[in-house]
């Protein structure tokens, strides 16, 4: 142990030319789904993104000995919370990254606050993380369901899609997604002509799609997620709904889902994202590096992991500690900017505020390659995309 430490210090001193040798050990734990429905969206890709951040930050030169470990929470809160506790108590992990599936994320957020560590949430979508169940050391980085619903709801209504019909997954998540979006639609002068609750999970959407088709709506809002969304889009394509002029709006859908569906099936679908690989040269370069290791383009969750880890490492370097409260306070005080997420400001409640973008899925004629899937329709400024902060969740004021 002593020898390792001495060696590490010697190496650090060599690298830094003896100028400064802070020598802080930082252990990053990437906890996500590596075998189930979110494995594509987060999974190993998030580990790769975290490693890329450590590399690009030049952590070793700055005296930070960063180690990245990972585990599969199997989308089970008890498995996830067991790993999180073990990581903090025994393995000396300083920060947990990613954690899709809101039930696991909420459990991890609570444990992280108890142990005064940092939780960089990129994978989960639940707004509860920064609202009803907010915690001082949770940084909710990439997106949340309200931002996606807000973004799509507002942008689509503004673009002329005024009459909405909702297909809602019949459970708490689906209803809150519908409620959020319907509110935005009405605020922007649109109207909701109807909605139908679809049992969850569903494979047959035909009768619901027929209702939507005959409702005379311009837009069919899909207030569901994962397999339900994919099934609904597939069947809508079979019914020729988009070809007949009605638009589909995905309220929680990711690039991986679009890739799986293909441009032929998903064409014309509108969706909100925090990141798309083909936005500019910097995102293309970064995504190419990612693709070398993963054989696929990154999702916004991967990009979010990268940015969040960069900001976290900057905070550790600046404060010289991995103490949860101090690092969180620094991250909330100092804005962050990079090519992937643009300007990012972390609010007092831990919500990272940045611009979101509305995309439309290209038609097969427009698409020039397997991953050439989206075209940008508009930008949604950060202050409009996310829900306002709750006063009791502002941890920066004492």
């Amino acid at each position, binding site marked *: 142990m002593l020898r390792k430490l001495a060696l590490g210090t010697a190496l650090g001193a060599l690298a830094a030319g003896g100028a400064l040798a802070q020598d802080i050990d930082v252990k990053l734990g990437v906890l996500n789904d*590596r*075998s189930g429905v979110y*494995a594509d969206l987060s*999974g*190993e890709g998030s580990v790769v993104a975290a490693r890329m951040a450590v590399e690009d930050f030049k952590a070793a030169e700055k005296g930070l000995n960063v180690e990245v*470990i*990972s*585990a*599969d*929470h*199997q*989308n*089970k*809160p*008890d*498995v996830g*919370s*067991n*790993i999180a*506790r*073990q990581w903090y*108590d*025994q393995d000396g992990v300083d920060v947990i990254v990613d954690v899709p599936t*809101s*039930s696991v994320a*909420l*459990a991890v957020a*609570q444990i992280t606050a108890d142990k005064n560590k940092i939780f960089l949430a990129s994978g989960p979508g*639940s707004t*509860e993380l920064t609202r009803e*169940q907010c915690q001082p050391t949770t940084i909710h980085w990439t997106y949340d369901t309200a931002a996606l619903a807000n973004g799509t709801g507002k942008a689509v209504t503004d673009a002329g899609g005024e009459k909405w019909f909702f297909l809602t997954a*019949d*459970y*708490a*998540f689906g209803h809150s997604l519908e409620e959020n979006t319907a509110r935005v639609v009405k605020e922007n002068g649109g109207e909701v002509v109807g909605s139908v609750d679809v049992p*969850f999970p569903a494979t047959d959407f035909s009768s619901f799609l027929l209702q939507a088709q005959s409702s005379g709506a311009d837009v069919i809002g899909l207030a569901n997620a994962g397999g339900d969304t994919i099934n609904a889009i597939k069947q809508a394509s079979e019914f020729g709904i988009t070809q007949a002029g009605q638009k589909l709006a995905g309220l929680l859908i990711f690039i991986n889902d679009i890739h799986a569906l293909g441009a032929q099936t998903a064409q014309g679908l509108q969706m909100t994202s925090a990141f798309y690989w083909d936005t500019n040269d910097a995102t293309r370069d970064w995504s190419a590096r990612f693709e070398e290791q993963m054989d696929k383009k990154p999702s916004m969750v991967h990009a979010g992991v990268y940015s969040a880890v960069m900001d976290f490492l900057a905070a550790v370097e600046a404060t010289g500690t991995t103490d949860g409260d101090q690092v969180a306070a620094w991250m909330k005080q100092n804005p962050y900017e990079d090519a992937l997420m643009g300007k990012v400001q972390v609010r007092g409640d831990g919500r990272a505020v940045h611009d979101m973008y509305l995309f439309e899925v290209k038609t097969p004629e427009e698409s020039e390659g397997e991953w050439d899937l989206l075209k940008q329709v508009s930008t949604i400024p950060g202050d409009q995309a996310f829900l306002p902060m709750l006063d009791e969740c502002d941890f920066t004021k004492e």
Partner: protein
Amino acid sequence: MTISNSGIATPSAQRAGMPLLHKVIFLVLLAFLVVLPFLVYPVFAMKLMCFALFAAAFNLLLGFGGLLSFGHAAFFGSASYVAAHAAKVWGLTPELAVLSGTVAAAFLGLVIGALAIRRQGIYFAMVTLAFAQMVYFVALQAQFTGGEDGIQSVPRGALFGLISLRDNISLYFFVLAVTFGGILMLYRIVHSPFGQVLHAIRENEPRAISLGYNVNRYKLMVFTLSATFSGLAGATKAQVFQLASLTDVHWTMSGEVVLMTLLGGMGTVFGPLVGAAIIVTMQNYLATFGAWVTVIQGVIFVIGVMLFREGVVGVIARWIKRPL
């Protein structure tokens, strides 16, 4: 005829109380469990014990009652929801929260059992699965369960309002007392006259009826008891992880407990404990392998079915020619 004999004490051993071998194993197990939290991570050890109790409760129904339920997650999960709600919203102390969860599971077991035992074999399994899916639906839709987020941040509280359980080690000994006590009670039930009647019903139901036993009443009792102890395990788990979630009521949980029981040895006293230990340890220590966990779990199950159908403990019991 070792198989039909395994797991049930011979009448002579019955009269003398617990056979010496079982006494020794229980004592060694207890000694091992006392030092376990100092060897491995306590939360992991607690999870292991909760699942051991769950599998043992399930084994009471499958191994000793001969009834394959495919809906035991309903009792495990509903108890964990009720216990979590009791501790968080009603502010009950841990022992009362666990008790209320257990009572809820017992009641649910009585209702579901009364309807399910009218059918046998695959129909029985399907009826229990159907009820479990209904419970899952309620957990997904009801207000107090928090939908897919579950009930989070359940306080661990203080035992009897006096001893704080925030510390992992003190909670561990609370969980040890509950689960070990539960397993001993299950052992007592199996080796009581009631257990003997169950054995008779499992082996030859028409003969048990002809002997004048009210078979359905026995079946309902064993179903309710199994549900109660499953509930005890689920309620305790909610305290350990400070959460109750859909995982606990999902049908995969019902499948997992079947897997644990079969792998360890159905109809043996110690089999379910071993099976639970194998599965939980795998899930925990193989978590870093990601997708491979489920693959490895599947391979082990296939090996188990091909090579030792009586389960790990069943095979050992056959070797040493003693019921375990």
